[in-house]
């Protein structure tokens, strides 16, 4: 399978690279300058790889990587010099302490938007520098800590410069491999989904807060790892090596190289370690060039050097035509039953004085296609947002399969089998079509798990909507209508108990609308419950078993299509709207 083999490739390449760098490090001339510059680059890169994960994968701005570098370095320095711990024990402590600190910080701030993390991390960075400087009894204060020893590993002595550099490089390769594997793992995809669209991620079953916190924790732990190795490399550390300015330099390294993969971290770090050598003619102005470079990179090269290379030279291949088992939910048969699967009672959502939804009841029968219609502003989408947990209900209850889910967050509702699409398309733009749909297949409550099975399920879903041929493309390259199908495939890959479609035909042309109707018809009658919002009455007529009509946030009619369309209030509401639109 596609992903399994690529994982194997990563591991093989990593193994080869590890041997190569180890060999290179031992054989290469061990003069001081070369060793120093390589050790500096290697240890910094490990920390920068952390930034790649938190910023590049997860889209969160952390401005305190130098603090984590410092925590790792101080754990190693204090552990070995003051407390006589073995190097690797102290290093492990450093990684754990920075990781846990990162998780705590993330816990405090990541429920909120990205700028909160940016701000809190600046504050944290400054506090760490202050503590390192002022807590003289523990940290040795501004003098720093000299004489940090390098380790021995069993019988192998790692004290020599080349051997120690070898150690740093092997760790670096391991971190790079880890970052590459992470990117293709479920967690890595979740991070990227959070980066690209938090709302869609949450309704795809991703716990946004936990994902971000974990990403930040990993970032911090890698900072600690890099810092610990840095301490051993240079045998002396002091607080002024771990200040806010260094944090900015590390961030610039990540951005310059490209935040999409750890290779970017390697490139960016090497460039910025060498750059001061090349930019020497600029004298005092070279930090200004850093600043200018950051702006220029954001504007002209948002994917960094490595992103540029990948974008130009690496073309992904289309999937093979190997047959895949069709979506299992299509194999099921099931008529509309009388069991109520989604039961909404007295639901209200008020925004300040505006009563967007005001005491609506909704009973959706298992296996039915239930349409929710009404004029613009009647509260349909708000209703869907409350049902899926994006909005907190002002009043009323929502029950799914008899269970009260009113208080549950979106990702927990998704686990119970609730999948949805959006009126304004919400796909994960940084990912391929296939990856988008795999995220849907990875829903916690799905009947498949594991990379191969979920990929297979995703391909089946793409087959169903007819997008297999473009599965390898970035989703943003697809035309608008096809992106809607990606959303539907993403929802279907999760084998939902109940599928909520918010205006699936909006923005489609006539032919596409016909195709959409055909697709919905194919979905019907297999036991999957569908709630659909749309303005296209012909579409609704073709597919709906049951219709609920909203107007001004209240339910004005409910029943089978024929009776509802005759309902005088419905006629008035739609005529009223028609008149309004004509005006």
């Amino acid at each position, binding site marked *: 399978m596609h992903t399994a*083999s*690529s*994982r194997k*490739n*990563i591991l093989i*390449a*990593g193994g*080869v*690279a590890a041997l*190569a*760098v180890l060999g*290179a490090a031992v054989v*290469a*001339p061990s*003069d*001081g*300058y*070369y*060793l*120093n*510059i*390589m050790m*500096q*680059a290697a240890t910094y890169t490990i920390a920068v790889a952390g930034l790649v994960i938190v910023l590049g994968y997860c889209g969160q701005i952390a401005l305190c990587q130098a603090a984590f570098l410092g925590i790792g370095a101080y754990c190693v320095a204090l552990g070995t010099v003051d407390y006589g711990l073995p190097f690797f024990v102290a290093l492990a402590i450093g990684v754990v302490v920075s990781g846990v600190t990162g998780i705590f910080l993330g816990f405090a701030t990541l429920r909120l938007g990205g700028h909160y993390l940016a701000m809190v991390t600046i504050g944290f960075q400054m506090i760490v520098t*202050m503590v390192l*400087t*002022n807590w*003289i009894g523990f940290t040795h*204060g*501004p*003098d*720093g800590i*000299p*004489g940090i020893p390098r380790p021995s590993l069993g019988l192998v002595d790692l004290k020599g410069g080349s051997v120690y550099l070898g150690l740093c*490089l092997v760790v670096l*390769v391991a971190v*790079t*491999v880890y970052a*590459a594997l992470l990117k293709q793992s479920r967690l890595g995809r979740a991070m990227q989904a959070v980066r690209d669209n938090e709302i869609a991620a949450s309704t795809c079953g991703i716990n946004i807060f936990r994902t971000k916190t974990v990403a930040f924790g990993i970032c911090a732990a890698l900072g600690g790892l890099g810092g610990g190795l840095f301490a051993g490399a*240079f045998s*002396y550390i*002091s607080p*002024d*090596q771990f200040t806010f300015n260094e944090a900015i330099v590390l961030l610039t390294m990540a951005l310059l190289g490209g935040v999409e*993969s*750890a*290779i970017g971290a*390697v490139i960016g770090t*090497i460039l910025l370690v*060498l750059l*001061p*050598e090349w*930019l*020497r003619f*600029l*004298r*005092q102005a*070279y*930090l200004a060039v850093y600043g200018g470079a950051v702006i220029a990179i954001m504007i002209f090269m948002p994917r960094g050097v490595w992103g540029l290379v990948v974008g130009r030279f*690496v073309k992904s291949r289309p999937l093979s035509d190997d047959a895949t088992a069709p979506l299992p939910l299509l194999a099921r048969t099931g008529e509309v039953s009388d069991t109520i699967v989604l039961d909404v009672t007295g639901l209200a959502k008020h925004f300040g004085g505006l009563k967007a939804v005001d005491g609506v009841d909704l009973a959706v029968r298992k296996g039915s296609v239930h349409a929710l219609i009404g004029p613009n502003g009647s509260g349909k989408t708000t209703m869907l947002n409350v049902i899926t947990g994006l909005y907190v209900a002002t009043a009323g209850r929502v029950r799914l399969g008899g269970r009260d889910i009113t208080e549950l967050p979106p990702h927990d509702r998704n686990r119970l089998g609730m999948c949805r699409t959006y009126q304004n398309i919400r796909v994960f733009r940084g990912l391929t079509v296939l990856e988008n749909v795999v995220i849907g297949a990875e829903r916690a409550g799905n009947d498949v798990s594991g990379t191969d099975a979920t990929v297979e399920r995703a391909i089946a879903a793409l087959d169903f909507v007819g997008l297999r041929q473009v599965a390898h493309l970035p989703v943003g390259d697809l035309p608008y209508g096809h992106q809607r199908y990606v959303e539907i495939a993403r929802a279907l890959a999760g084998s939902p108990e109940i599928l909520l479609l918010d205006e699936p035909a909006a923005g489609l042309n006539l032919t596409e609308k016909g195709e959409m109707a055909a697709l919905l018809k194919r979905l019907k009658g297999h036991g999957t419950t569908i709630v659909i919002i749309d303005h296209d009455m012909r579409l609704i007529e073709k597919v709906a078993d049951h219709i609920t009509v909203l107007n001004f946030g209240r339910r004005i009619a409910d029943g089978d299509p024929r009776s509802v369309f005759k309902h005088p209030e419905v006629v008035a509401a739609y005529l009223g709207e028609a008149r309004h639109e004509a005006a």
Partner: protein
Amino acid sequence: MHFTRRSAVGLGIAALATAPMGIAFAADEGIKIGMTVPMTGPGAEIGHLQTEGAKIGIDKINAAGGVLGKKLELIVEDDQTTNPGIVLAFSRLVNRGDLVAILSSLRSTQVNAISGDARKAGLPVFFGGTDPTLTNTGNPWFFRARPNDVFSAKVIADFGVNQLKKQKWALLHSTDAFGTNGVKALIEQLKPLGVTPVLVQGFNNGQADLTPVVLAVRQSGADIIATYTPFENDVGVLARQLKQFGVQATWIGSASVASTTAMQLAGPALYGTYAVADFNAEANPQAKAYFAEFSKKVGRAPDYSSAWAYDSILLIAEAIKQAGGTAPDKVRAALLAIKDFQGAEGAYTFDQNGDGLRSYNVVKNDGGKIVFVRHIAFDK
């Protein structure tokens, strides 16, 4: 997947890109002395002065025919004002393999950063960092061309207690390495004189307001304030607020108190204050000559940032002459044998730790003019 194979390639390229940087130059006739200075970053201005000081020393020696018939040559590397930067710059210099000695940093933390490499390099390494502990690590190649902070503290304590007759001391300092160690040394030096400070207070550099500190000084009832702060703006804020809150105590501080910038910032608020400085043009004839030479060449008055570099060059030249060659161990032995060599900063006699100077100058701000008060030297 393609890009991990590239990761190996990427690392390989990295190795290639960095490996051959230290190409050695073909040796020519001159005697080469290396120097790391901040050419970029926040210390660039001081780095410029330091380079000029060393160049004046080189020119002076060469104008007199060089050493052992050879000209001196200065090789400068940028330390970026950072610790990793000086580690790289220093190892580049060492890698050349053709240097006789190296001048490194004024900043104690940077000297610490290269301490390990300096021990391995096997060359005399001169530096200007004043943290007393730098020369306590038993590194035989370290030579300090400035008096360390034990002596500035000694001078402040001696002058304050014995000349000014003050007993109630308030010690204020920056929380950086300079300030913290300076005050630590001062507390030690006050002890034998029977003084325990009534207040010891640190603050971060760059504060907009020091009201809490100044109020604490006022409450402590101190009759003398001693400060260790490297930056002029802190001196300025402190001076203004001490005046505003009516603190009458005498003020004696580290060199920044008498710097031109601080006097510009604080104006009359600094009148009547004392400061200790390792370089002062009035202290001796060499200092006077250096002052004139530097002012002519650079267009501004020299200070501690360049005088030690000038002296270091003269010391190295003298040691080569005495040793009759450039073999590092011979030069080192010659340096240790030098007695009372008059430089711009004072008379150098290196002890076994590599500390060459044990004297400071006390100056006073007399209505906006710095006047030389006295030169205080110690035997040990």
